[in-house]
């Protein structure tokens, strides 16, 4: 294997006497070098990546750099999609390089890439090989093991998945306990089931559904992590296991459509589960509720005098094209004034939680100047918002941490849209 390098210049062109437009320009300033030939880059790693299913497009990069200003990680560190190609071309082993775990699969680079270099496929493909070889950051390994054992990334008891229901204040149909045909199967998701702030959103959802008379049920202990972020983090085998298990569970019950709390499960159920035999009418909860705004308005009893800015979740917005439903709901709330951050909609900034980033904060810290969520919270404060509204279960905890970390405690509240709807319908404000 030749060592990467470049040939020295072979030929020098220099005219003894050079005359240009009647002027004598003889001398070293008319010297030209023969083009240097890159002759022995080690292309083995590049070929290994482009040989993987999903890895092909890495080879198409022509280094234009359009991804540089839109990559959320590039802004806070040395990582960058354009650099990935160059580094691999120069022989770094991406299969073992920390860069492999920094991409959040937010898709903003693909949006602007003229060559359609698809990091959303490249990264999971390379990570899959790394996972097979046992090269997994320890904090991510723990998440994989928890999800395999318990069906949720935090390693909580599967039996306690529906415990939040007790404090919802309204009846919730748990289908395994009381099976019946329902209009809506509400897939709650792991964070709304277990994370303290996620549970707040789950309870708010139950109350809003109850107020609107939605005919729905949840899966209780039979529900398992959807697995989309697990797949993007490289554990495809685990994703497939979860998909098969969830599809088997869905088959047991009669429903017309699935409504999900989070954009990641929306992406999984809508775009990936069909490959495993599960095709459903799937709606993110904002899409389910937006057409019901007249009924929702009739239930509002309170004005919320908030300046609200909305953070587009990558997997609802860029990945699935839904930008309007969340905004329609926010604008329907009396008293709310919606302001946009400069980076919004198609160019929304990533919270850092996607593609496994949710479980790599400790790892990423060594390679980034600040957490993506910290940066996003500063943007929200800069536009004068007093509420940062979100509709992805990863984000409430990420941004609330970021509010504290950036010294904005007391200046900015982080609320799921469903919590704001619930509050305007008369429930006590969260905390």
């Amino acid at each position, binding site marked *: 294997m030749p060592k990467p390098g470049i040939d020295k210049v072979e030929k020098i062109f220099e005219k003894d006497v050079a005359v240009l437009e009647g002027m004598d320009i003889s001398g070293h300033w008319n010297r030209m070098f023969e083009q240097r030939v890159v002759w022995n880059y080690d292309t083995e790693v590049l070929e290994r990546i482009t040989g993987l299913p999903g890895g092909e497009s890495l080879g198409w990069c022509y280094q234009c750099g359009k991804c540089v200003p839109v990559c959320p990680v590039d802004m806070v560190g040395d990582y960058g999609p354009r650099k990935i190609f160059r580094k691999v071309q120069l022989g770094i082993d991406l299969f073992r390089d920390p860069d492999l775990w920094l991409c959040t699969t937010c898709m903003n680079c693909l949006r602007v890439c003229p060559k359609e270099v698809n990091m959303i496929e490249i990264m999971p493909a390379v990570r899959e090989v790394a*996972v*097979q070889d*046992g090269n*997994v950051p*320890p904090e991510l*390994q723990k998440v*994989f*093991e928890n999800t*395999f*054992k*318990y069906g949720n990334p935090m*390693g*909580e*008891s599967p*039996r306690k998945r529906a415990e939040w229901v007790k404090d919802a204040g309204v009846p919730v149909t748990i289908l395994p306990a009381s099976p019946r045909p329902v209009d809506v199967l509400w897939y709650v998701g792991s964070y709304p089931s277990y994370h303290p702030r996620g549970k707040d959103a789950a309870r708010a959802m139950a109350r809003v559904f109850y107020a609107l008379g939605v005919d729905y049920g949840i899966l209780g202990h039979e529900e398992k992590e959807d697995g989309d972020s697990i797949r993007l983090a490289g*554990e*495809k*085998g*685990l994703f*497939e*296991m979860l998909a098969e298990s969830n599809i088997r569970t869905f088959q047991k019950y009669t429903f017309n459509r699935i409504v999900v709390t989070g954009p990641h499960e929306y992406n999984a159920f809508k775009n990936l589960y069909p490959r495993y035999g599960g095709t459903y009418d799937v709606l993110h909860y904002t899409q389910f509720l937006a057409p019901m705004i007249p009924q929702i308005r009739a239930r509002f009893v309170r004005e919320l005098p908030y300046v609200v800015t909305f953070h587009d979740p990558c997997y609802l917005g860029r990945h699935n094209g839904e930008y309007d439903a969340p905004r329609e709901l926010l604008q329907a709330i009396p008293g709310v004034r919606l302001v946009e951050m400069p980076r919004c909609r198609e160019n929304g900034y990533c919270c850092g939680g996607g593609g496994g980033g949710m479980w790599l904060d400790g790892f990423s810290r060594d390679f980034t100047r600040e957490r993506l969520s910290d940066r996003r919270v500063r943007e929200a404060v800069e536009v004068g918002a007093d509420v940062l509204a979100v509709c992805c279960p990863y984000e409430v905890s990420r941004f609330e941490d970021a509010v504290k970390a950036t010294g904005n405690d007391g200046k900015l509240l982080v609320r799921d849209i469903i919590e704001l709807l619930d509050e305007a319908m008369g429930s006590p404000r969260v905390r």
Partner: protein
Amino acid sequence: MEFVVVSKLVPDLVEDLEVNAEGTALDRQFMKLVLNEFDEHALEEALLLKETYGGRVTVVAPDAEGVDEVLYTALAKGADRAVKVTGLGEGLSSRGLAGAFADLLPSLGFDLILTGVQAADDLDGQVGMLLAGALDLPHVGVVTGVELVLERRTARVRKEYAGGVLAEFEVQLPAVLGIQAARQPPRYAPVSKVRQAMKEGKIEEVEGRVPPTVGVTVQRMFKPEAASRAQMLEGTPQEVARQILAILEERGLLR
């Protein structure tokens, strides 16, 4: 080299533990079982040894709910054989378990037996020693690192003592080691490999036999009884601060 990992499943603390109606054991109704964490380290150490010196790793575990998943995971990590020992019943004592393993292991063949130094369910830490006793083999416990000296057929092992002191032993093979921690954290078993192992279904089943043993019986199992309770202070930060100050003064903790 034949490395044999002796393991067992213990209650998973992810579920709340309840004492049974008789008050003598844990209620097993909703109990979930996992591989004893120290046994996971014993397996990791065995796999590292195999990678360095060659040979075979055999994992042995008594039958229990979830044992198949544990054994397939071990195969996915690189173990060569997985043996499920049936018919031993639930809640076997350390002595009973060591007796059953001593009865079984000669038929499997071994150069080095590795087991977790203890298990979270009984905290006895005796299986390794009793097994070594029954097989008339040398034993070292609380081991945190193993290397082999092939030409002398010995193992050089590191043992942890209290107070941060380490000792190195050389022990004649075959031997039994109680592993405190492997040299590296237990490796990840990719789910695709676990599922592949499940498809291959290579778990061997053998009927176990528990030799008659003397032992102890649990007379009463109970949750710790609270002797005193924490006092929660309420009010604004200023009020809470004043209360803390008052308590510290009252108890003579301020000078």
